[in-house]
């Protein structure tokens, strides 16, 4: 990235952070040389579907807007479907300022502070504790670092922005193979205080689930749309694909795919629905 055409004073005043980062990590003086740029993951688009209150949605008896009582999601975990609009300013501005606040207001409106809660059936918490225990005592042959690196490489090579069906199908196979290895993971630290070995193992367990639904959903969507740029289906296909993918994965990494419709109405008379259109440069 070239910045050297800008006056040094402008760079110092407007981009001091980028100038310093380029110097520290690449030894580049931005007033004289271009900054080397590599693609990386900046943010995971998509997530747990929610309504604009931050309440989690699922498909229930054909109703795609069925609220999961008591479960909320905000930020990068959630998908309110503001998509690219959220990336302006690079800091999840809409997720935080609009929907983070909305979720807080919803909690305030729907919950009574200090209200007593029904006791939870042990059967419901058992599986969570079993997962924690299984990972804390994991004593298999694969280190978390190895499994994570294999997953990272598979996603970088086979699930990047520009992709084809063959590349994605290979990615599905690679991720499936990692899912098969995951039960024989190993950690060394069995402690209960600041156990970052365990923390990274739990993170991996979360990430492999996310990688699984991401690559399977991408292989399934036979069109191009936004950051999903398929070279074998390079056009956007609103007729067949103007819908959200819903994906469920079980612990073994088997994926079920369904869809929910895109809302094409506004909730106010003050503004009309703005039809999405192809992004051109």
């Amino acid at each position, binding site marked *: 990235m070239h910045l050297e055409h800008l006056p040094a004073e402008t760079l110092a005043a407007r981009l001091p952070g980028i100038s310093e980062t380029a110097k520290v990590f690449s030894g580049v003086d931005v007033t004289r040389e271009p900054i080397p740029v590599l693609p990386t993951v900046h943010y995971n688009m998509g997530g747990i579907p929610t309504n604009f209150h931050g309440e989690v949605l699922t498909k229930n008896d054909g109703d795609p807007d069925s609220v999961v009582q008591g479960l909320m999601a905000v930020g990068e975990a959630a998908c309110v479907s503001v998509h690219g609009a959220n990336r302006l300013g690079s800091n999840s501005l809409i997720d935080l300022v609009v929907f983070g606040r909305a979720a807080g207001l919803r909690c305030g409106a729907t919950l009574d502070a200090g209200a007593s809660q029904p006791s939870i059936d042990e059967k419901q918490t058992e599986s969570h504790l079993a997962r924690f225990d299984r990972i804390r005592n994991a004593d298999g042959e694969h280190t978390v670092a190895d499994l994570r690196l294999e997953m990272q490489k598979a996603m970088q090579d086979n699930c990047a922005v520009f992709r084809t069906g063959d590349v994605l199908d290979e990615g599905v196979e690679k991720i499936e193979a990692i899912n098969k290895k995951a039960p024989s993971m190993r950690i060394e630290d069995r402690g209960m*205080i600041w156990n970052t070995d365990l923390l990274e193992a739990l993170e991996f367990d979360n990430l492999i689930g996310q990688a699984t639904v991401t690559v399977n959903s991408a292989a399934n969507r036979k069109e191009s749309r936004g950051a999903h740029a398929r070279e074998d289906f390079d056009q956007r296909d609103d007729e067949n694909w103007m819908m959200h993918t819903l994906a469920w994965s079980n612990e073994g990494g088997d994926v079920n795919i369904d869809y929910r419709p895109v809302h094409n109405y506004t909730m106010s008379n003050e503004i009309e629905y703005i039809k999405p259109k192809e992004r051109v440069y």
Partner: protein
Amino acid sequence: MVQLTLPKGSAPKKGKTWPKPKGKNVKKFKVYRYSPEEGGNPRWDTYFVDTDQCGPMILDVLIYIKNHIDSTLAFRRSCREGVCGSCAMNIGGHNTIACTRGWDEVAGPHISIAPLPSQPVVKDLIPDLTNFYAQHAYVQPFLKTDTPEPEKEWTQSEEDREHLDGLYECILCASCST
């Protein structure tokens, strides 16, 4: 002269020395280890890292150790680009953040890596920052004004903004705590 001694049980002892790999540019790192669950004194563990195999910063070395040598080593890290302040520690005797300090910038036959001094140690390189945060909150480090609240928003001139230079860059890493 005042005699400064460490409280009982806190003087680090010699710990484990991990095997030395082959390689042209193997560097020696002495890392402070303390396990609250095992008890006893903290210890200095010795690791050898082939610096041709890892990135340029001390944080890259720690991540290399955690991924390839000893996954029990505990340290805080998040952004790995000098903006979050999580990985502040004492490296070669200086408090700094590990992600922007190159291992080639630290002189000597080995590099020592310890938690920030003068804070209770939770585990390994992780200090308890409770007191630091309490002190930070106590000084109320934010702008205050006497002018009445505007109807819409506060505006700031370029000159006013310049008054903040040198004051706003703090990333709360706590390296200044000693």
